[in-house]
């Protein structure tokens, strides 16, 4: 059986390398993007093999799902333009350079990596887990031990959305060449399931793989699907509506939790004794909501309209 597992790993690695090669070298841009999406899919299998279900979940929701939708949508602007007959790659970067340089780098990295004892922090986590307020170690690390990273991480998401808004208006969506009647039905059918699964993942977070990030991503993906199914983007950039507030809610709440620690005379982000569990629950819900909207906002690639509709006539 060990042989079968080894064969599985080898095959997976070979497929990943092949796909990475295709994603960087394929002559056709769409070919490259599909290769990259499949790369993400197989990467999730690799995470599963490496006993990292949390990472697999995030990769499935964010890596393969949301990123795939982003890349495919970006093609709409890029694919329309006529292809220029220029070389796709820089000249002069011949194999003479890359083969030796690549092999040297590879040898160096592998040598270094084999020498790692990888002591890990597993024991430290086990020792502190009971005080963290949650049963699942990854959630404990994200929202308690290293909550500062998570605050900045949600900040990065929010910041990315602000940057994208600052760059200009969202491009109006293209009208499909042949609208299908099945699409709106699909949206109506699936959206409740998206919401349900997102809520389930959020709830799972405290004692198993799940939590705000996959949940938010699934929720956001549901929004993207609704948009594709013909719904109007309901998010508005108007400064009067609630949207800007909800977008920044996750970061604001995390920041408040951090400051609360300082104000009560303790460390930044130190939850009062015994209240860690409820703090983390509130943080998860707020963060999940924000993340969903932020991922949706990232997908729009620009600032949505302030008011009014976004019909095909505009």
């Amino acid at each position, binding site marked *: 059986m060990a042989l079968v597992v080894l064969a599985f790993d080898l095959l997976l690695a070979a497929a990943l390398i092949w796909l990475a090669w295709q994603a960087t070298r394929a002559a056709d841009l769409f070919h490259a993007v599909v290769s990259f999406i499949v790369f993400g899919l197989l990467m999730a299998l690799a995470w599963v093999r490496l006993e990292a279900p949390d990472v697999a979940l995030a990769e499935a929701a964010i890596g393969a799902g949301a990123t795939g939708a982003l890349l495919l949508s970006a093609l709409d602007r890029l694919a329309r333009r006529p292809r220029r007959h220029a070389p796709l790659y820089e000249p002069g970067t011949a194999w003479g350079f890359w083969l030796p340089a690549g092999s040297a780098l590879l040898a160096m990295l592998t040598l270094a990596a084999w020498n790692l004892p990888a002591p890990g922090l597993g024991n430290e*986590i086990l020792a502190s887990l009971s005080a963290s307020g949650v049963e699942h170690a990854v959630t404990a690390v994200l929202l308690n031990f290293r*909550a500062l990273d998570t605050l900045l991480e949600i900040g990065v998401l929010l910041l990315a959305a602000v940057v994208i808004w600052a760059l200009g208006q969202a491009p109006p969506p293209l009208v499909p060449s042949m609208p299908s009647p099945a699409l709106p039905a699909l949206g109506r059918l699936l959206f409740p399931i998206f919401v349900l699964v997102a809520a389930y993942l959020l709830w799972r977070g405290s004692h198993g793989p799940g939590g705000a990030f996959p949940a938010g991503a699934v929720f956001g993906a549901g929004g993207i699907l609704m948009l594709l199914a013909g719904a109007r983007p309901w998010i508005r950039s108007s400064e009067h509506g609630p949207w800007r507030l909800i977008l920044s809610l996750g970061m604001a709440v995390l*920041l408040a939790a951090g400051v609360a620690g300082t104000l009560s*005379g303790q460390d*930044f982000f130190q939850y009062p004794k015994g209240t860690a569990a409820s703090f983390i629950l509130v943080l998860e819900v707020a963060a999940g909501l924000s993340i969903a909207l932020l991922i949706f906002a990232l997908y729009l690639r620009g600032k949505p309209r302030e008011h009014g509709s976004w019909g095909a006539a505009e």
Partner: protein
Amino acid sequence: MSLGPVGPAILFALPLAAAIVVFVRPRWSVPVALAAGAVQFAVALALLGVVLEQGAWRQSIGGWSAPLGIGWRLDGLAAALLLMTAAVGLAGAVFHASRPPPPAVVPDPRFFWPLWLFLWGGLNALFLAADLFNVYVALEFVSIASVGLIGLAGGAAQAAALRYLLATLLGSTIYLLGVALLYGRYAALDFALLAERVEPGLVPAIAAALMTLGLLLKAAIFPLHFWLPAAHGRALPAVSAVLSAVVIAAAYYLLVRLWFGPLAPLLGTGVATLLGLLGAAAVMWGGLLALLQRHLKMLIAYSTMSQFGYGLLVFPLAAAGAVEQAWTGALVLVLAHGLAKAALFLAAGAIVLRHGGGRLDALGGDQAGVLIAWVAFAIASASLVGLPPSGGFLGKWWLAQAALATGGYLWLAVLMAGTALTSAYLWRALQAALRAGGETAAEAPALSPALGLCALLLALGAAALGLAAPMLARLLDAVPGGPG
């Protein structure tokens, strides 16, 4: 509650909170941003005093100690850079608030404010961080905010922003690979903990090489500087100022932090000389290119690349034994450069507004309205060149002492040649002002005197840094893992 533990929390949380407020309610932008800036400046100043009084300290986050938890550490170096960030941030904010509204290249120029505050918060987080991965997250935060700010100028600046984004992402990915290797070897991310555990060996050496490479790319050190001039030259003036003065300094700060902290056991003569040579090449090459520029802001942008070369001289000089002088000299130089460079960019911004363009041969003639800006430009230039008693002079003096003490005549020569180049290209810029027959903008906007004043104050700060020599020496002495 003493200011000690509370100060860092304020510096971390206040700009981010203000950014959120300004994003949600754009009409409050200017007052909120200026108020937050003023408070931060005051807090940073007070923290500097606390550090002078009681020395450096580390504080943990969330009640968890390393290796599991993250911490902040505040020492003289961090406090000085936080204060410099606050000064540049505040001056840039005032400058931007009082400049005439830019032509409509962006749909909503008010997005400047949340991005500005986010960048500020990210920089503060970076200077406080004492954890390798926390540094990575903060670096990405700063990068994205910078990209957004560069992109605000529209047009060609967005292409520059994209190049910058790709370069900086590559840099942080390479850095992260180094972090992964170190984590795998020592199961720690905290600076202090790693400093205890790291010993020379294959894995730490490769990790150090990777992290250094990534940071060199972010600091735009020769030969990895290709992205810098376009990105810094094309952005809005306040943005160019903070990018050149602080964002580059942040990458350099990490480089120094790592090599004099966790990676100190690996700092051999070979590595140090290599880094020093890179710095020397950057000084010369950047200076030459600056000399060839025809556009005021591009000239200043190339000058940034040149000036950070001096910073790298700290490695060979410290490795040769003159730790204290080299360390203090290089860091004073970085601080003085930050203030002077920000002053130069702000002054150039006002001048470009007045003349409707930045080509050097069109800057002459009537200088009404931007006289203060030119004065600021001249004072900042004097500091960059290193005329006494400016901060630039002090830094170069200490570096030269270190070079003499250790017999590093090569580095002394670099200092001299660099100074000559610097004075040559800055003189070209100043000369342009004295020529007759320039252009003024078609509809010359009435410029607020605040524009020039912001630049002047920063320039005076850079010049006065030299007078604070004893205090600076004491402050930077407080850096553990460094000298002593």
